[in-house]
């Protein structure tokens, strides 16, 4: 797997992670807490990119880790934890889209919490970045997730295909279409 450029993982860390998983399997919640601490940033970024909503993303990421904890017994501790937790998060995000009618807004002007605060404001991102994320959010769901897994997660076509249970050809075509749509929408930003 291609590693996220921001999160290099060395061998020692892998071993350490395996130990954490083993200990978590044995019921050591503190060990699981360390896994949460290690991966939550990256998972949250991915889910926020998909949902465009920090609050929803927080819920999804929370649920993902809880599910992972409950299913730890079936997880091979020799495998890296992140691909597993990210797969869970992607699946839950899919479910979230279904349950929410797929009309998930990424409009910074409208997307406010019940307390009136703009959840995206917490992200402290530039207007251009907001525009970009809004454009990503407006992609058809099928394209959006493929684009995010490729552009944010740096997964290979094969990894995306496995994760989403689609063919590599479908990954290719969706990615192409996603990029075409984004190029059209963000032409001025990209020139």
């Amino acid at each position, binding site marked *: 797997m291609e590693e996220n450029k921001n999160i290099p993982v060395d061998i020692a860390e892998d071993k350490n992670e395996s130990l954490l998983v083993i200990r978590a399997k044995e019921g050591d919640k503190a060990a699981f807490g360390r896994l949460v601490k290690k991966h939550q940033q990256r998972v949250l970024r991915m889910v926020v990119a998909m949902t465009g909503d920090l609050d929803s993303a927080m819920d999804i990421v929370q649920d993902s880790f809880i599910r*992972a904890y409950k299913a730890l017994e079936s997880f091979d501790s020799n495998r890296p934890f992140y691909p597993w937790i990210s797969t869970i998060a992607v699946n839950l995000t899919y479910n979230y889209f279904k349950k929410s009618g797929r009309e998930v807004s990424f409009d910074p002007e409208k997307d406010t919490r019940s307390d009136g605060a703009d959840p995206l404001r917490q992200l402290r991102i530039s207007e251009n970045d907001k525009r970009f994320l809004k454009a990503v959010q407006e992609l*058809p769901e099928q394209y959006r997730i493929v684009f995010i897994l490729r552009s944010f997660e740096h997964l290979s076509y094969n990894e995306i295909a496995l994760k989403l249970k689609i*063919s590599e050809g479908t990954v290719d075509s969706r990615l192409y279409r996603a990029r075409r749509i984004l190029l059209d929408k963000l032409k001025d930003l990209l020139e």
Partner: protein
Amino acid sequence: MKNGKSKYEEKLSAYLDGQLTPEEMAEIAAALDTNPGLANQLEQMRRLGELAESSLPEFDDAILAKLEQNIMGNLENSGEESSTVFTSKLSERKIIPIWQKYIAVAASVAVLFLAGRLAWKDIDSPQSSIMHSPAPSMMQMPLSAPEETNDLESGYIEDESLGGDSYLIEKSVQSDDADKGVSFNTQSIARPTVDVESDELNVPEKQKVATPSRRSEGSKKIELKNSASATGIEGNEAVVGIAKKAEDDNVFSAFGEIYIADQPAEKITAEPVVLSEENTETVALNEASDSYDSEAPSQGESGLSDMNPSMSNVVHSGTYDKILADSIVSVRHKLKADMEFRGDAQTTIEMADIQELSLLPLDSLKDIYALYVIPSKNDRKEYLLSKSVYTEIIGDTISNPMALLDSLAQLPGIDNDANEIESLYLRAKTHYQLYLMTDEREHYREALDARQQLEDVLIDQMNLHPRDTRLAEYAKDILQWRFTE
């Protein structure tokens, strides 16, 4: 040119990601050298990637601390019980080898067998299964549980040591009359077969050995292991076994159960078997209780008569729907671990999942999962065409959806999505069938989900190919499918 785009443009994305063959990479590279517009597009795609890289900042500590706190707090509060709809206590169920505790029961059974009132029946093929020779008097018994009982628990017993196509589903009901003990409504699963030439689905009749039946006080289930299966009734004691011929022709795996039957068998088809510690295991029945709550629907309740009319075509016998429904429950339980592993309670059941489940009666599920278990697309199509009933399940107007989908796959420009369209169609259909059979809302939701996704893909395709009237016609047909809840 296709759809206004050059062949190079369509490959730019894959070129950027290094996903093309060396030859294609070279071809695109050459085109880039001579086509400034193409090179400009590639550069824009690169910038798009850079924008993605930089668009999301790292979340600050306060957000992460809150998230971590929520996760860990939830773990502390919820314990370790799973909350998904597929929760099963399967892993908690134990088949307890308590032979020695109940050796007296087994011994009495052995005596019954040795009395020579039971006869072996060889099981060389599914068609010659013991289920083909049921006790006539028992076959006339009603499907439903005894009216005088209240259903208190249900469950199914499985023995992971069994291989192949065999398993036993048992549903138990507690009699109102405590003196009568526990009654059991047993489902014995046999393998249906399909005769494509005659267009007949040969469904072995279910053998209802003892319904209503009473378990004698203190009796326990006896499993026959590594021996030929037996069926028969001795006096008011009945044994039903389900067998699978092992690789070694001389060895069979089997379940057996002892009942107190209401009436004696008129036909004995089994030969004596000597029960011993080596070939039996006594199981505490209550250990089998698990979380699935789809108790056996009777025909008059949620069974055949209440199903969508199209389902009557699927169900070739009054028992087949019930058998399949219970099989599906079994599938669901068996897939539970994998579903949770993937964190997706809505995981589509896949062929690979089924193949790994050695206990599943694949043939009995074939009608439901035909499109998953038949690997060849042509074979699937042939099977479906031979079974016209299956083309009517979801839509009233589509007589041959596979042919329709095949046609769809031939349309230009959508070949990459054809498989997905088919997959979504099959997923929707399968879950709708499962819903009709099991009355479980989860399957209904799954079917709706799949249908929604199918719509998405079709709409995407129509947007991409707005002038393709054939595509629009196909999509229009498919989008007319309606589920009946």
